């Protein structure tokens, strides 16, 4: 038996180690934010605020007078994301409802493993399939010269945001108290009516949170959109135009932007905007979900 003192010192020491590790998570989050602000702020020494936020054109290497406006890439990002969500919301909520209301335990665990596996497919592989598979298919169906456009990106992002959407939505639907449903059945409602009129409305805040989290996932996705949307840095007119999102712009240009130039810092500023978008999404989803949680 070791002495009491040694054991107590050891105990105290390990407590500190664990606390320090816990603090590290906070530090990293703050660190990412601080790094983006610090590097991004340097950009505004040369780039006017108004130009950055209201300008449509991002042409950092244009000869003579480069322009740094994030308008086009913000619009592109939202175009691709909204297309993705239009596809994935009905599908994801349908699948989540199936998982929690219809599926037998065996089918459910099988399908959940499938969803988890889908989440594990690397985004670069999904992007690759967008090039070799979805692109040519889209070109054939729509009669365009090539299928590398916003719609392609939307389809891929829809697939990529599905796992997040499904798992959060399923949790929301399952957390609806049983007596809600039992009351509906007692009144003579069938399963479908109960789901549509009672369960889903009761789970609505959780479903909204799921949608917001899925959107956050799609907004920040890089590789798939980088590979499958054609990357034309112009204001898109529709889903058949080639687009370049914020994340894709950073990925394309950071390698070629010389260190310390306005271009380099500008990319960090774009990253800062992206960070604030996704962070506010997460916080919003958290608030909505926490506020309307059912207590068992």
């Amino acid at each position, binding site marked *: 038996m070791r002495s009491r003192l040694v054991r107590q010192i050891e105990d105290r020491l390990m407590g500190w180690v664990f606390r320090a*590790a816990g603090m590290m998570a906070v530090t*990293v989050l703050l*660190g990412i934010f601080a790094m983006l602000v610090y590097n991004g702020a340097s950009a505004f020494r040369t780039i006017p605020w108004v130009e950055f936020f209201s300008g449509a054109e991002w042409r950092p290497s244009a000869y003579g007078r480069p322009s740094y406006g994030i308008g086009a890439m913000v619009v592109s990002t939202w175009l691709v994301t909204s297309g993705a969500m239009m596809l994935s919301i009905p*599908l994801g909520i349908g699948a989540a409802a199936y998982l929690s209301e219809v599926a037998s335990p065996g089918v459910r665990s099988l399908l959940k493993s499938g969803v988890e596996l*889908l989440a594990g497919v690397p985004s670069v*592989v999904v992007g690759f399939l967008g090039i*070799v598979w979805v692109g040519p298919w889209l070109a054939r169906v729509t009669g365009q010269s090539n299928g590398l456009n916003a719609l392609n990106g939307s389809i891929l992002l829809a697939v990529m945001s599905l796992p997040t959407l499904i798992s959060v939505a399923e949790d929301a639907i399952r957390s609806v108290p049983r007596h809600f449903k039992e009351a509906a059945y007692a009144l003579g409602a069938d399963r*479908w009516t109960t789901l549509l009129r009672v369960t889903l409305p009761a789970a609505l805040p959780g479903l909204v949170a799921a949608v917001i989290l899925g959107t956050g996932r799609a907004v920040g996705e890089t590789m798939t959109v980088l590979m499958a949307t054609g990357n034309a840095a112009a204001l898109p007119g529709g889903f058949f135009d080639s687009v370049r999102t914020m994340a894709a712009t950073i990925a394309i240009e950071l390698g070629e932007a010389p260190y310390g130039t306005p271009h380099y810092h500008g990319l960090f500023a774009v990253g800062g905007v992206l*960070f604030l978008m996704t962070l506010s999404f997460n916080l919003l989803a958290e608030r909505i979900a926490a506020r309307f949680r059912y207590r068992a």
Partner: protein
Amino acid sequence: MKRWRKYAACLGCSYLYLSAGLVLVFLGGILWVVCYSGASVVDMEFIRSYPRLGMTAGGIFPAVVGTVWVTMVTALFAVPVGLAAGIYLGDRLRENRLNSLVRASIRNLAGVPSILYGLFGVAIFVRGMGAGASVLAAGLTLGLLTLPYIITTTEEALKQVPASMREGSLALGATDWETLARVVLPAAAPGILTGVLLGLSRAAGETTPILFTGAAFYLRYLPGSVFDEFMALPYHLFILSTQHHAIDTVRPLAEGTALVLLGFVLLLHLLAVLVRYRYRRHHHF
């Protein structure tokens, strides 16, 4: 009215089946296409030989080795730190404000897009620490990305251990640390291992965090130390499918790379699932 309603119900339920089925079709489609197109390219020769003739022929050996290396660095960094942070959150009996702050940070970190981890890696590891573009910088960047995942699953696994086990140990006079190390951690180990493997499987497939922190276009040698640049499977696939000068010629190589990458990632994934499956069968608290 009643008939109409029955109709709607039938239609509605089949919609649920349809959407669940479609999700499976997506997954199956991805797996099938990658396996089908890559199967004719991939063999031992492909995995064990270097790229030749400007990457239009040969194999992907340096990319395989690079991915294994960088995943190992990721594990060396993220596993101990993630475990410790997970223990901090999961082993507390009381909640306090610091805990909830840490927990909120981790939830939000999990939502930060991977490209921003890449920016962070460039600013902090490559430039700030002077590690340069290297296996080390890329591994640390991927490690940060994996941390929230490992922390959350560790916390969950620890919470699954019934309080009675912990209380029994404490009642026998063990300290918190002894209870943790001898009783709680062993009981939670399979759950933690599952989380670690899933986290690493994700890290191995990520491209954006390593894009500027160490992945190289083409190298004729393997990384000699953690301070060298490296080739990686995801980045290699990206290059072969979008950046190469003869994209059509290298398409089969890209298909092969996609299969090897997916195989590697899914192997780790499968290991995780196996661990969880065994654990479920053998442990019933």
